[in-house]
């Protein structure tokens, strides 16, 4: 073979370094541009959530419109573990991951033979079931008020303990989790598993005839995505010092879909990251101007879907391609 088409996937890429540097230093510069540490915490948590969500939507082409359920289960798992089992941030976060994975794994058993609109409808139905349970099962979930006594706790770092009371400290913890998630997911999407996910998105039938176990792959990616949502939910419970049903509602599930689409999850690994940042900046910026900021955000969403369905990442890729073409000519 004269030419090799092998192209190694680097562990660290330039966009990663940019993201880690820009976001990782947020507590140092955020306040000086009028932002605040807690916003950074929210952004990081939702980036994790959206990255996991995009494994399903962008990579495998599976529309999950009830994903808030697993985020919420993660939050409740964190709270319940902390209040009833053991006082440890690590273990409680792990409980969030396991909680999200178990519930998602159960749901996935019922939907993995489906696709398209039926898949979407069933995820909505299961999402609503989880939301309803969280509203009504007072003895466990605290009903509409949620779990109230969750506290931030201290993080055991072997050599020292770090209190998460301060938003900046919590930010660094969440950010470290984000770094791990990004590194792992980046490997994952470039592995045979990641290629199989995309193959299923493009042509599920052919993927089966090539020899892939389509059902099991769909089941596993839904479970994995639920686990990541549970992880994000656990962090959210720390941040909010609470777990409550609202994050499991249909409109909260819609947020992560909108973030992923506006950012450009279908064309880029980084789509959900961009989308989550845009969402929170829009919330704070538009929210400071008008109470009806969601109306304007919704219009923006419609504009993106109509004019640039590939989202912000897609528009950026077009821009780079155009500039490269100009340079070459």
């Amino acid at each position: 073979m004269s030419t090799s088409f092998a192209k190694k996937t680097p562990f660290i890429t330039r966009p990663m370094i940019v993201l880690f540097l820009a976001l990782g230093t947020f507590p140092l510069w955020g306040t000086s541009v009028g932002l605040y540490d807690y916003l950074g915490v929210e952004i990081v948590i939702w980036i994790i959530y959206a990255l996991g969500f995009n494994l399903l939507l962008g990579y495998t082409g599976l529309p999950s419109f009830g994903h808030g359920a697993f985020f919420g289960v993660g939050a409740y798992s964190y709270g319940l573990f902390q209040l009833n089992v053991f006082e440890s941030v690590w273990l409680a976060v792990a409980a969030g991951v396991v909680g999200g994975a178990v519930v998602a794994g159960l749901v996935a058993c019922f939907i993995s033979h489906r696709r398209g609109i039926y898949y979407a409808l069933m995820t909505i139905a299961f999402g609503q079931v989880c939301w309803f349970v969280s509203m009504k099962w007072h003895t466990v979930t605290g009903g509409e008020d949620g779990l109230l006594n969750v506290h931030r706790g201290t993080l055991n770092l072997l050599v020292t303990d770090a209190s998460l009371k301060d938003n900046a400290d919590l930010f660094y913890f969440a950010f470290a989790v984000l770094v791990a998630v990004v590194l792992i997911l980046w490997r994952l999407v470039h592995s045979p598993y990641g290629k199989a996910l995309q193959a299923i998105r493009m042509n599920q039938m052919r993927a089966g005839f090539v020899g892939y176990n389509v059902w099991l792959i769909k089941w596993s990616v839904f479970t994995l995505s639920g686990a990541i949502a549970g992880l994000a939910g656990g962090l959210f419970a720390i941040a909010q010092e609470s777990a409550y049903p609202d994050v499991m509602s249909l409109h909260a599930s819609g947020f992560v879909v909108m973030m992923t689409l506006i950012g450009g999850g279908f064309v880029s690994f980084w789509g959900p990251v961009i989308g989550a940042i845009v969402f929170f900046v829009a919330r704070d910026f538009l929210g400071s101007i008008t109470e009806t900021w969601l109306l304007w955000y919704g219009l923006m969403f419609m504009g993106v879907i109509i004019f640039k369905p590939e989202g912000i990442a897609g528009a950026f890729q077009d821009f780079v391609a155009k500039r490269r073409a100009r340079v070459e000519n």
Partner: protein
Amino acid sequence: MALFEAIHLHKRFGDQVVLEDISLTFEAGQLSGIMGPNGAGKSTCFNVLTGHYKPNAGKVMFEGKDITGLPPRVIAGMGIARSFQLMNLFDEFTVIENILVALPESVAKSFNIGHDIMGNSSATDRAADVLAKVGLTGRELELAGNLPYGERRALEIGVALASEPRLLFLDEPTQGLGADGTARLEELIGELKKTYSIVIIEHDMKFLFGLADTISVIHWGQVIAQGSPDQLRDNEWVRASKIGDAA
């Protein structure tokens, strides 16, 4: 022992009997053809043989093992690959990625999330070899969805070849190809025939008569004739359809 055998297959959709007592035998190292007019049950037969449909009765045997009703992925894993009549590619993958995902080692590692598939030069070399076989060298980094029709046909066969099959099923490979494309495809399949056992379903008799070692004619859901192209030239049905002249 025959490489592949279908024994007394029946297939109904509701009240409609599509296959009625079909028995077929394909030998290793041969190119076997299935032909018949539109609506004869060729495609259904093909789908039953490759596991897409389950037969209502009868057995399908591959290398002496009963594979009746097994899911397509299991049949694929045993060494049977198929191409599709309607194009069935991974359009947003590049040409070489289409082959890469179909390599047996990629399928075997489908739950290995640490393996860098695009960085594995032995795999990409093998994929490039497959592309050379179907005449797509130089097109490796093109998106499959951007290929012209004839090259998509070739890639369709390439994806099937990628699994290193012991038996290759091709479903109407000349579908939609012009005279030039058909001639090129004939050349390609003539070449593949030297190394693979192949079954082709086809209504272009001229094409099939030029390539096949044995041909089965299916009509009204039954095998109405079987034999070498020479034997079939004198067959009543083939003569009646006047396409025998062309062959």
